[in-house]
């Protein structure tokens, strides 16, 4: 590759050598200037909507948006003049003018980019008073609430939904002052193609998108003495919750979290990782079954709820490829309402089954009728990492310095394979660890499968089990998932087994994870890496690292399920999904044949 031409530019009268072909902002970032910004996001296309990142370029009549303007030879840029500071302050003030003045009662108080920006710009007086918009909140989705009043039209959500997730649930409608970000035809979220992934919440700089908050309801249920309260915790929650308490990313917090949940009032703290091991038992068996000719290949994983909803709308023709396994959350919920209820000798309707998830789509999943157990929901309530962090703070529990404890038996013990579920490629890695040994009867020596780790959009690998070659692929983020489905459309025999996670990075990057802190940005890959590393660390520290070696899973089969894919398993742990309306449109591509 030809090296980029170096040119010289002046920033605040100091000469620098920078690579040609980049924007002023990119060049300035690399030189240690952080020009204030709002609508800009390095993973998204350039919008230039907010004008916060203006700089003065000598020779230009107006201030220039540094996010979209390329550097040129001998360019003289000023980033910090009195006039610029005033202009930026006015711009942010004008944005605030059409924004509710309710910071102290807002969901994102303290974790709001607009609030931080207003602080940084030094807005201490309000000079403008103008018309303010007012729209109803969209409360229709079980996962994501849309509040147009808080929207500042930066367009990050629209770009994320169309460029990264390629779902295109959101667009700008109407124009000028009346512009609103909304689903097609101003339909409620629940009637749109929205997959409930919640990434719009993560990238929104304000509280225009937030999860449906279940914390008050949960506090009330925790006070109900007639209920036995049971909670499960997803792998990725422990890898990120520390961030919500100001700790550096990448600290595994499961022990602290377990004791905090006990203090909150839960009677039993179970681990979704236990169910991840169980999922692997069922899924690996299903894979081997399908490879031996029973069922459609490639088999595709079914853990990610946003992914399932995406498939139902966009690629229903691949629903038969989906593993029939329920997600680990729903498997554990089903066991709580059956196996564990029996063990307790308790009416399952008196059990409160709560799931703490890194995910907003799980709230939607918990509502799915196809996952009910004898007419009862397997999971009664889902709260996100953010919500549980707030509850712990609100209840006055010191999670950080408290002595940790372990998950409860019989649904709390997990292998290392269960932990890595949270990172992209983790389910595949866990499944291969078990499938290999089930198929060959031999021990897989090198169980850290590097080819499945990391954050490239689509990863491919090939494993040999005796005479058999197993070709696999892993995608994370729905945009990459769509790309992978197009590959499979063209080459149906290319893979045997495919893992898809709806969110960038896998569950660790879920829509329910702590908001970006002051020194990071949403979807920050460094954060994702650290969270993944926390999970790989948990795996390394375990003696048992293969799902089929989990003694409590083995006991569960012996006492209750029989064997993988047994009739009991099928009744409780497997399900099927069906095509949903409206049909998703793959933008600019494929063939959107009407189905």
């Amino acid at each position, binding site marked *: 590759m030809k090296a980029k031409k170096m040119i010289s530019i002046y920033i605040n009268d100091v000469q620098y050598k920078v690579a040609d072909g980049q924007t002023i902002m990119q060049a300035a970032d690399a030189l240690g200037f952080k020009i204030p910004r709002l609508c800009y996001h390095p993973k998204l296309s350039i919008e230039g909507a907010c004008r916060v990142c203006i700089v003065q370029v000598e020779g230009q009549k107006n201030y220039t948006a540094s996010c979209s303007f390329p550097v040129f030879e001998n360019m003289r840029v000023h980033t910090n003049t009195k006039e610029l500071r005033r202009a930026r302050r006015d711009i942010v003030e004008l944005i605030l003018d059409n924004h509710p003045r309710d910071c102290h009662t807002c969901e994102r108080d303290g974790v709001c980019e607009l609030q931080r920006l207003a602080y940084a710009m030094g807005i201490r007086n309000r000079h403008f008073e103008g018309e303010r918009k007012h729209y109803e909140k969209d409360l229709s989705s079980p996962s994501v609430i849309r509040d147009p009043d808080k929207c500042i039209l930066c367009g990050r959500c629209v770009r994320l939904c169309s460029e990264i997730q390629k779902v295109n649930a959101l*667009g700008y409608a109407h124009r000028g002052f009346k512009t609103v970000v909304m689903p097609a035809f101003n339909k409620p979220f629940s009637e*749109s193609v929205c997959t409930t992934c919640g990434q719009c919440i993560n990238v929104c700089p304000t509280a225009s998108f937030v999860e449906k908050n279940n914390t008050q309801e949960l506090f009330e249920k925790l006070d109900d003495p007639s209920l036995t309260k049971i909670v499960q915790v997803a792998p990725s929650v422990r890898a990120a919750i520390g961030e919500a308490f100001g700790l550096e990313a990448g600290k595994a917090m499961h022990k602290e979290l377990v004791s905090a949940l006990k203090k909150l009032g839960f009677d039993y703290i179970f681990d979704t990782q236990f169910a991840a091991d169980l999922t692997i038992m069922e899924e690996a068996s299903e894979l081997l079954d399908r490879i031996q000719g029973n069922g459609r290949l490639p088999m595709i994983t079914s853990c990610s709820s946003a992914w399932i909803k995406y498939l139902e709308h966009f690629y229903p023709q691949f629903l038969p490829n989906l593993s029939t396994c329920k997600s680990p959350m729903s498997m554990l919920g089903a066991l709580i309402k059956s196996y564990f209820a029996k063990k307790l000798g308790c009416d399952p309707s008196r059990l409160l089954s709560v799931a703490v998830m890194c995910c907003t789509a799980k709230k939607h999943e918990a509502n799915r009728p196809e996952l009910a157990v004898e007419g009862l929901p397997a999971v009664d309530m889902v709260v996100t990492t953010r919500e549980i962090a707030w509850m712990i703070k609100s209840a006055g529990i010191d999670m950080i310095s408290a002595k940790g404890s372990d998950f409860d038996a019989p649904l709390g013990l997990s292998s290392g394979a269960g932990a890595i579920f949270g990172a992209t490629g983790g389910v595949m890695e866990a499944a291969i660890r078990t499938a290999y040994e089930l198929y060959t009867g031999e021990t897989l020596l090198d169980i850290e499968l590097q080819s499945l780790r990391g954050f490239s959009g689509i990863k491919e690998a090939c494993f040999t089990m005796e005479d058999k070659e197993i070709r696999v692929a892993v995608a994370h983020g729905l945009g990459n998932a769509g790309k992978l489905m197009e590959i499979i459309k063209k080459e149906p025999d290319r893979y045997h087994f495919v893992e898809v996670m709806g969110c960038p990075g896998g569950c660790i990057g879920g829509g329910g994870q702590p908001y970006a802190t002051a020194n990071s940005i949403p979807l920050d890959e460094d954060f994702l890496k650290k969270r993944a590393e926390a999970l790989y660390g948990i795996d390394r520290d375990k003696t048992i690292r293969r799902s089929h070696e989990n003694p409590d899973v083995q006991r569960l089969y012996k006492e209750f399920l029989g064997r993988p894919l047994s009739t009991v398993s099928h009744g409780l742990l497997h399900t099927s999904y069906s095509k949903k309306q409206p049909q998703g449109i793959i933008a600019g591509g494929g063939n959107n044949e009407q189905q």
Partner: protein
Amino acid sequence: MNSNDDIKLQQLKEYMQGFTKDPHAQSNLITVLHRAQELYGYLKQEVMEEIAYSLAVPTAKIWGVASFYHYFNLSPVGRHVISVCMGTACYVKGAGLLLERVRQKLNIDVGATSADGLFTLQEARCLGACGLAPVVMIDDRIYGKLSAEGVAAVLDSYANRYKNNKQQSVVRSK
């Protein structure tokens, strides 16, 4: 959809056929929306969905375009569409009075359709006929140099066409 709509849909599909092989099919979106409005009188949701499949443009994007432009009607319109030009020249020449007179006469607001289904009232930004200001356009005919009473007379002339037959309640899309 009734059979009349089936024929229109067929026509629209044939029209789009010319674009679907185009590698940049989506760049024909506005042209196709124009054709759809010509056929149906307004952009109905089912039709926009049909366009979405054919041009591979997500419905949220189509909705964005359709709701952005004044020209596109998002609900059924009357048999005749009245556009009162509120551009600068017309406005100075008294377009506001014309608009007021039409509102009063038809007893509707801007954007609404009269009770008999004959007229839909719209405002327009400069129709490009400033020499004739103030201007009112009905369907695709221009009426210039109008007074408030003049515009009332023009409306009467349209209404009179329907006096003697039974086609009173005629919303174009039905």
